[in-house]
């Protein structure tokens, strides 16, 4: 292409303490095209998005928009410069009307008052561009998620010279029909000359819409603005994960498949919308639960812990039908633990010392009749697990002071302290540097080798292939099938991705 690129990122660098998130990434977007930005978790995709949208400032390299070099100081700067963003989560004021939400960043005013006619007119024009027919005066809270998202896309178009529209995982909360609708809108926008930057995990929609593609791996662009048509899904996956991933060299670990499972879900249906989910985990086994964002894996784990209604089917622990009302029962009676995905909001007490963070699950066990908990005993337990997991901190330090990896270890430690027999681990290595990640894998492996039954939820396919014995694939709150893990990356990943994208 000889035309001037609309957005050009050259040699972008971003370094965080101890981690080089981006090491010279290039991105070239042609006008009037859909460009896909792909990469595994931790490849540097989100850092890249944050630089383009003005959240982070790059440590090196340049960002050029329509021939002009830009230095954004805030997300608003980027929007005003013409980079429209539709975030993964909805960012609207629920009480405000559709029109007002769309123009919140530049409310048309006459003498200090909102010029509603001008507002409606501008909003209407943008909505027409994407062919969305909603009442401009309706409060946004009355719209569906998909409609709200389209409103946000339209909002990005109201910026008078919005040239680039960035869509971050736009379909994660949409149904298939809604996704189709969105893709139509994207095509229409492209045909009208807008450049779209699509960030998505879902390869099928990338292949359905994108013209060119940039693939990031380990903070570098391994494929730069290449026409997508030249590649197959498999080749793109190979580029994303790289050939370097090979089977782990962990000591062999065998699972006695003849023994009865300790945790069984039997045609489980939940209030969230899971239907007929069946799976089982044996002692010493790591069962992976794979699926795209929004497949309902975390929600399934929470339903098992009694945090959602079970509307059909049942849960069996050690062969017995059980009814779990809350996490206390899950832990106290059935020895099930859950290491949540979001350690900061769900896993840790950031302003409490490690002792409290680790001992929370054992107080019920070590207290005496008067509820007395011996400080010494508590501290011993905490120290033991700080040692065992190699947490680089003193037990009296606050969880908030630790690095991400150490925090994740603390989040895990409390379940080890609780003597869990079944552990559900949700996305254990998100945002953790490579070395700690390896240590974590070893730890999980060892836990299984010691006889723990582990249900591992991860979107990181190499991690899955490294650790799991079997991989259960979920999509849209249902189980699509199970893959025996051969620990050969190419083979297993193809089978898993095949199941994820299998047409129903």
């Amino acid at each position, binding site marked *: 292409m000889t035309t001037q690129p609309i957005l050009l990122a050259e040699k972008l660098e971003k370094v965080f303490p101890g981690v080089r998130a981006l090491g010279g990434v290039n991105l070239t977007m042609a006008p009037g095209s859909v460009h896909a930005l792909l990469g595994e*978790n931790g490849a540097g*995709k*989100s850092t890249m*998005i*944050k630089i383009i*949208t003005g*959240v982070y400032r790059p440590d090196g390299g340049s960002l050029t928009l329509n021939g002009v070099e830009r230095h954004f100081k805030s*997300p608003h700067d980027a929007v005003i410069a013409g980079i429209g*963003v539709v*975030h*993964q*989560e909805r960012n609207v004021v629920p009480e405000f009307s559709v029109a007002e939400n769309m123009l919140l960043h530049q409310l048309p005013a006459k003498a200090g008052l909102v010029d509603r006619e001008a507002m409606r007119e501008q909003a209407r024009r943008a909505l027409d561009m994407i062919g969305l027919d909603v009442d401009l005066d309706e409060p946004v809270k009355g719209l569906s998620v998909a409609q709200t998202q389209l409103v946000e896309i339209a909002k990005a178009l109201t910026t008078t010279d919005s040239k680039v529209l*960035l869509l*971050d*995982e736009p379909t994660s909360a949409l149904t298939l029909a809604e996704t189709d609708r969105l893709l139509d809108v994207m095509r229409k926008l492209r045909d009208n000359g807008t450049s779209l930057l699509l*960030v998505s995990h879902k390869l099928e929609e990338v292949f359905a819409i994108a013209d060119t593609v940039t693939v990031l791996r380990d903070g570098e662009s391994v494929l730069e603005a290449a026409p997508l048509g030249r590649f197959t899904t498999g080749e793109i996956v190979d580029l994303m994960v790289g050939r370097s991933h090979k089977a782990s060299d962990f000591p062999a670990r065998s699972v006695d498949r003849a023994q009865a499972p300790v945790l069984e879900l039997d045609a489980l249906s939940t209030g969230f919308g899971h239907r007929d989910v069946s799976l089982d985990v044996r002692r010493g086994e790591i069962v992976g639960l794979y699926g795209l*964002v929004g497949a309902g894996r975390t929600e399934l784990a929470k339903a098992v*812990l009694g*945090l959602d209604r079970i509307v059909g089917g049942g849960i069996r622990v050690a062969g017995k039908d059980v009814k779990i009302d*809350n*996490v*206390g029962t*899950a*832990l*106290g009676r059935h020895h099930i633990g*859950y290491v*949540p995905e979001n350690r900061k*909001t*769900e*896993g*840790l*007490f*950031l*302003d*409490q*010392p490690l002792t*409290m963070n680790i*001992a*929370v*699950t054992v*107080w*019920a066990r070590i*207290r005496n009749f*008067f*509820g*007395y*908990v011996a*400080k010494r005993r508590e501290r011993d337990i905490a120290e033991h697990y700080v040692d065992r997991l190699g947490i680089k901190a003193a037990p*009296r*330090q*606050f969880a*908030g*002071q*630790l*690095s991400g990896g150490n925090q994740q270890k603390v989040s895990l430690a*409390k379940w080890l302290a609780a003597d869990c027999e079944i552990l559900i681990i949700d996305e254990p290595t998100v945002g953790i540097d490579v070395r700690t990640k390896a240590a974590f894998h070893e730890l999980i492996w060892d836990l299984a080798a010691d006889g723990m039954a582990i249900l591992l939820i991860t979107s990181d396919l190499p991690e899955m292939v490294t650790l799991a014995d079997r991989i259960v694939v979920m999509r849209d709150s249902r189980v699509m099938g199970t893959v025996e893990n051969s620990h050969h990356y190419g083979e297993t990943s193809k089978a898993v991705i095949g199941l994820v994208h299998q047409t129903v």
Partner: protein
Amino acid sequence: MSAVDVKPPAAKTRAGTGGRRRFHPSAGSAQRWSLLVVIIGLVVLFGSLQSAFYNEKLIVFPLLREIAVFTVVGLAQLAVLSIGHMNLAVGRMAAFSAMFMGMAYELWHMPLYVGLLIGLVAGASIGGFTGWIIAATGVNSFVVTLAMDFALLGLVSLVYSEFTAAAAFTAKPAGMDEMRNLSLADLCAGDVCGSPAVPQMLVFTLIAMALVGYLYSRTRIGRELLLVGSNITAAELSGVPTVRRVVGAHAMSGALAALAGFMLAVTAGSFTAGIGGEFMIPSFLGPVLGGTLLTGGVVSIVGTLLGTSLVQVIRQGLTTLGIGLENLNIYLGVILLLALSTDRIRSVVAERKGVKP
């Protein structure tokens, strides 16, 4: 994976103090020591300006009695602050419980301690009920306790006008007058008697402090309360029975308010609807000055005693110096703002020193 990682503005963080987390283990005790130094300094200052400040019977005895009452009031607030809630009805819960105590003495002629027990049960019940409403509806504790304050204010007055002539239960069971007036001077071991400056009523405060302190530092329930205050989602996901803890914290608040109401009624000599009317502001001052966080998760029992003492010493000292009531509140407000701002500055400095939030 959100593309934007913007810090929520203060308007939205639950109590607007997201940055006030204390990541330094010793920050709390440093704060208590500095409080103690300030209190001693003020006592010396007031005494040197006006030697009457050291008068055991006329100044120190009532001062310590006030400290005794308002420390318990502070503990009542601390109980709900520990889970990140507020109890705006703390004074009215005291009035509600005191009403039962008054009825127990006047209408049912019960002995002193039986009446106290009835009051404590009444306080725990109304507190627990409030906590249950909060836990079951998920509505902000501020709204619920504010509404409860209104309801109790009306209810208590209604009952008093129904059962009493002069809006007060005045029956005095045996031992009540002694409880008000006795000091350590009345406790003698042989010839050695205690100081007439120390009221025996302080015993209630010490017992309350010991029990609450034991709860938070030594027991499962206390620790779980702190974790509920720290991060209720993580607490729930760690198996903590969060609903029960919320109800429990409010019940404890109600019971402590009842004890404070009892102590105030004993001091005043009668049980009236007005008991607790002055509790609300001091109930926050004591704990907050003493290092208890409004956001929950951190409490200081000794700090509550010190914070309350500071407020009462200033109050008493200024009164002794002849500074009128009007200036008292101005100074108190300014001191509160200064104390909190310096605390905030200190935590900002601590964060800058490389402590990761």
